């Protein structure tokens, strides 16, 4: 879905780190093992940019070019020009196209105005004839103009016009960079406006860009805004949502617990000629889980089977979670066997969901037994498992078991969750183990499970509650 991997998301650009070798006097033939950068044409891959952040497009220099180490410290244009001049005159090495681009990128990252960057580009073309700007040069400028706090799109349009007059017609990559940068700068409305402009004048967005925009719209705008956008794109520019778009939309409405809309989208999707895949079904199933509607969860599973969609690990985990949550632990347990038959082995998530269901029924002993069974099968419980169990044991008022479990958690440096911490404190206080409650409070603070404030206020209110109950002579 064109998601930017975290490793690429932040590519801080520092010219000084790229130009590691600060010895301009070294002639080229003394370094035979260093491949000349010129031998590698700076091509612009068509599809890969979807996976990269716009920033990293032009900054990847694998071979450090021997050159004086520089960084732009001031956003001042004339400083930048003279710095560029000094680099050009002082280096004797063959010229690489990537190099001016990265200088421009470096300046653009601190420059306050797009005009300054454009002038620098003009200056670079004039003073250094072998340099001939390519598409990525303009993309550097474009991403700067999209980042600028200027509330209008004027600087973006200016850059695009510049690009067209210089003979580079904006393509899909251009659209993607503009939209992505605008979305990351929280300028969704501008992004929508720009996409429409792109459709009319330049290059319509591809599915990745389109889906990215939909995702951002879903996150921050109302359902009707998203739907209007989709309708407009479909009617004016014949750009239709694909299966991924529908999955994003369904996920969005499911998170808002609007299952009716999800069902409508499912119909729309079929009308558009798509067949729901397991991601769509998993998402809908998750929606029903949120509402604790066990029978609907089961219905989705059956529908998947009917449609010949093979359930995966996520499906089974969601199914078991949903059934457990809606109090149908017995049925959920049966699916452990079904899972194993289809080659999916229950993991800690599966077991934790089941334990959760058992604890809800008050069957904390059963949950502890399940923990043993799980460990016997070689599945390691995680901190969520332990928290679920601790919560369940406390709810079932099994003090000794809970203390024992807490000991295990403490040994494993596991964090306490708010819920299990609170119930555990209450149980301890109820049994008059105030000092132990204080010790748990200390652990929660030390292990940074909770913020100090939250941990303390829980302790305080628990003690207050205890006093009140005692005063009223109620059984504790």
């Amino acid at each position, binding site marked *: 879905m064109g998601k930017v991997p975290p490793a690429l998301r932040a590519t801080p650009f520092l010219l000084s780190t790229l130009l590691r070798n600060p010895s301009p006097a070294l002639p080229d033939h003394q370094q035979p093992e260093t491949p000349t950068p010129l031998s590698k044409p700076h091509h612009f891959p068509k599809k890969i940019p979807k996976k990269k952040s716009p920033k990293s497009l032009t900054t990847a220099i694998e071979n450090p070019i021997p050159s004086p180490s520089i960084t732009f410290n001031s956003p001042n244009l004339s400083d930048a020009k003279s710095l560029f001049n000094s680099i050009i005159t002082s280096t004797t090495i063959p010229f690489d196209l990537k190099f001016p681009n990265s200088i421009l990128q470096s300046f653009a990252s601190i420059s306050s105005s797009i005009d300054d960057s454009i002038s620098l580009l003009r200056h670079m073309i004039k003073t250094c004839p072998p340099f001939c700007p390519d598409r990525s040069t303009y993309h550097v400028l474009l991403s700067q103009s999209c980042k600028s706090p200027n509330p209008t799109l004027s600087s973006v349009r200016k850059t695009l016009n510049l690009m067209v007059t210089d003979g580079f017609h904006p393509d899909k990559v251009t659209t993607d960079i503009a939209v992505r940068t605008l979305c990351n700068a929280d300028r969704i409305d501008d992004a929508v406006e720009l996409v429409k402009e792109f459709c009319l004048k330049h290059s319509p967005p591809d599915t990745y860009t389109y889906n990215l925009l939909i995702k951002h719209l879903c996150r921050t705008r109302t359902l009707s805004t998203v739907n209007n956008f989709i309708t407009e794109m479909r009617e004016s520019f014949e750009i239709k949502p694909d299966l991924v778009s529908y999955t994003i939309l369904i996920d969005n409405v499911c998170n808002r617990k609007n299952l009716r809309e999800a069902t409508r989208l499912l119909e729309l999707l079929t009308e558009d000629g798509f067949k729901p895949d397991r991601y769509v079904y998993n998402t809908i199933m998750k929606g029903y889980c949120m509402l604790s509607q066990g029978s609907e969860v089961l219905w989705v599973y059956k529908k998947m089977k009917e449609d010949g969609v093979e359930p995966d690990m996520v499906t089974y985990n969601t199914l078991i979670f949903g059934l457990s949550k809606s109090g149908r632990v017995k049925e959920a347990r049966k699916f452990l066997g079904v899972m194993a038959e289809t080659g999916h082995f229950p993991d800690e998530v599966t077991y934790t969901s089941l334990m*959760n269901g058992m*604890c*809800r029924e008050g069957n904390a002993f059963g949950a502890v037994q399940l923990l043993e069974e799980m460990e016997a099968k070689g599945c390691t419980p995680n901190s969520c498992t332990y928290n*679920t169990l601790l*919560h369940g044991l406390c709810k079932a008022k099994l003090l000794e078991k809970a203390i024992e479990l807490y000991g295990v958690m403490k040994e494993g440096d596991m964090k306490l*969750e*708010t*819920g299990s911490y*609170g119930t555990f404190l209450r149980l301890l*206080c109820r049994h*008059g*183990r*105030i*000092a*132990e409650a*204080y010790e748990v409070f200390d652990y929660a603070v030390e292990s940074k499970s909770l*913020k*100090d*404030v*939250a941990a*303390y*206020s*829980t*302790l*305080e209110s628990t*003690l*207050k509650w*205890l*006093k009140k109950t005692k005063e009223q002579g109620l059984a504790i």
Partner: protein
Amino acid sequence: MLPQRMKKGITDNPKKLANLIDLVNLPSTLREFVGQSQISRLGCFMRVWSYIKANNLQDPNNKNVVNCDEKLRSILLGKPQVELAELPTLIKLHFPKAAK
């Protein structure tokens, strides 16, 4: 698993949060104990509790009870013994609600 109301902690309530973490000018008795002129209620509790732990003031026979030393007595109403359970309440006495 957790009920909805459990998740809503104190951090969502700005007034209660402020009551707990805002710095307050201390009365002279407390100032001597804490060693600074301003502290929050949470900070004060943490100070007192770590003082108790550091000086082993918990009764060895009943950990729920604190045997106050001279210094502690001066800030906890002069009581020779306090229950751990009432510690937050006792400390709260030094932090009266701001008069409106």
